[in-house]
């Protein structure tokens, strides 16, 4: 990687730290709101699914209690029967499907909103915590983007998985040396292939939140073209923040252990909660810096010359520009692909959000 890219990384990180400090509390509010909504939704879904499958869960719990109390070998059969009954029940499959779809959609929609607010911060606008809901109507598109990029990365993991499978076969046939060598090779292949693949599509979410009317596949394609020759730069970009998170976790854990031992305290719930709060605060602080760095990186890579950047992202499709346009998908694909009546501009000036 050339020195210029390294220097660019240094400036991007410094700018991101400045931006994070400037918009710190709104970004924290944004993150808390994001996590709160996701947690409430997952808790609600879990409770709903528990209520729906109450009978099967009760049967399994009773069978397990009976087995633990009696400890007779034959009494394990009711446990397996109850577990089989639960796992093969249509309610279980339906509940899991509902859980995956609802949390996936929610997560995708909120992530797009989060990305949009971060880009606004990079572009000098105000960050609004409620902006996390601004792109909820594109949740399905965001979810499709996430699944498609996950599939692409998973395909890159295949060679490594095949080698690990062969390693497993070697190990089971008592070829321990070759098995272990193949296992390391497989793991190495997985890391070596999936990390660049993941980084290649890392800008797709930003492309989509910047131009939500564009297509999913086109977003992935644009991300791939923008990341060409910049994968290693992107990998090194947030490494310092990740190392700081690891260092901070080790330091706080060590300090807590030291304090507990010095004061003769016991590791109870209160101490554990305080430690968790401190750790989360530190993780949030460095994670925000990392996220802002990625947003600044996208802005730098997408618009290397600030003069080329269109004034209004919504009107991007109407302007003459050198960057390849994202072709729109066919209108029949999904309801949210139709151009909404309320544009992003109207949303920003409205007192109340559209979502």
């Amino acid at each position, binding site marked *: 990687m050339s*020195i210029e890219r*390294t*220097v660019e990384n*240094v*400036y991007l990180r*410094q700018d991101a730290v400045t931006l994070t400090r400037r918009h710190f509390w709104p970004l924290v509010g944004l993150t808390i709101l994001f996590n709160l909504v996701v947690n409430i939704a997952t808790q609600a879904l879990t409770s709903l699914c528990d209520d729906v499958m109450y009978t099967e869960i009760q049967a399994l719990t009773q069978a397990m209690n009976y087995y633990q109390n009696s400890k007779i070998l034959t009494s394990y059969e009711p446990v397996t029967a109850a577990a089989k009954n639960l796992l093969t029940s249509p309610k279980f499959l339906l509940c899991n499907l509902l859980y995956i779809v609802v949390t996936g959609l929610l997560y995708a929609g909120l992530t797009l909103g989060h990305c949009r607010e971060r880009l606004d911060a990079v572009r000098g606008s105000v960050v609004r915590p409620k902006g996390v809901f601004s792109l909820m109507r594109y949740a399905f598109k965001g979810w499709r983007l996430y699944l498609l990029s996950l599939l692409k990365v998973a395909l890159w993991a295949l060679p490594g998985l095949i080698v690990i499978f062969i390693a497993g076969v070697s190990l089971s046939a008592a070829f321990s*040396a*070759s098995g*272990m*060598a193949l296992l*390391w*090779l497989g793991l190495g292949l997985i890391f070596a292939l999936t990390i660049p693949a993941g980084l290649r599509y890392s800008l797709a979410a930003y492309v989509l939140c910047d131009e939500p009317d564009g297509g999913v596949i086109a977003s992935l394609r644009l991300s791939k073209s923008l990341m060409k020759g910049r994968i290693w730069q992107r990998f090194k970009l947030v490494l310092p923040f990740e190392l700081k998170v690891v260092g901070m976790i080790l330091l706080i854990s060590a300090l807590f252990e*030291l304090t507990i*031992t*010095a004061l*003769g305290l016991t590791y109870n719930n209160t101490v554990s909660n305080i430690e968790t709060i401190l750790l989360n605060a530190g993780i949030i602080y460095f994670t925000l810096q990392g996220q802002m760095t990625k947003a600044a990186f996208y802005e730098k890579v997408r618009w290397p010359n600030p003069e080329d950047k269109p004034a209004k992202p919504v009107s991007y499709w109407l302007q003459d520009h050198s960057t390849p346009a994202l072709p729109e998908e066919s209108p029949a694909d999904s309801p949210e692909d139709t151009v909404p009546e309320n544009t992003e501009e109207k949303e920003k000036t409205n007192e109340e959000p559209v979502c």
Partner: protein
Amino acid sequence: MKNLSVENVYTRAKAKELTKKYFWKLLGMMAIVFGIVYAITLGGTALLAATGNETIAVIGYLVLMAVMLLVASGLGMGLIAAMIYICRDGEQVKVSQVFSRMGQCLKACGLSLWVGLKTFLWMLPGYLVVIVSAIVVVGSAYTTNGATAEETAALMTVLPLIGMILMFVLAIPAVYRYMLSTYILADKPETGVFESVRQSKAMMKGHKWQAFKLILPIMLIMYVVMLVVMVALGAVMGLLANTAAAATILSIVLVVVLYAAMLYYMIRMYLCYTLFYLKRVEEQNPAQEAVEAPYAE
């Protein structure tokens, strides 16, 4: 305001370029330094072991340590001087340049001892905490209202740990503060020991954190490379080392590759610090000229 992180990026890139260009020469110099010191140690120890007299052996070991310190300081100063010439002028240096500062070995030894003493004084508070904690623990064990076994164990763990942390927290900035004194003496041998330390303190003001961050990426890369080499060669050894001879050969290959990687990155780190020193000198010189200018006429 100058961007110190960007300066570090350029310093590391330049050090990488110079390492590639002068690697074998610098490796030869380091081999001479380590080789001579090792030979003196081995030879001296063997000689002293041959003497039957304990008193002579003790005096002999003290003399041997003093000789080793003198020789190592002189040779180390020569190595640093060679690195300074490489980084400053890019001039062709010979491997024999490592002996160029042997005439100042006494001064170099004095500098090492003075810097060592100053650093040790910064570590004193930490040492005092460790000693006090030991006294408190031993004392509490002997008094009638002595602490329980758990409390004693806790104190024995925590207080020395606090002392050690204090030692590191105070000693590391001190180490960086006096870091450039060796480079100043190697560059200008006419400078005195105290003057070198004073100049180093002035040069490092506001740059200690920068110096700390300068070699962090190189150290990280070094550890990752060594880990990868160990895993890869270990896997190969597992596959191919069917006989004792093959295992020995592969072990030797592993050790050689690891040392080569370590030396490569060590040379890069030394060159980074040399370039860092030259940058500080460059910064200081315009400042000094600005001060002297009104008095020039």
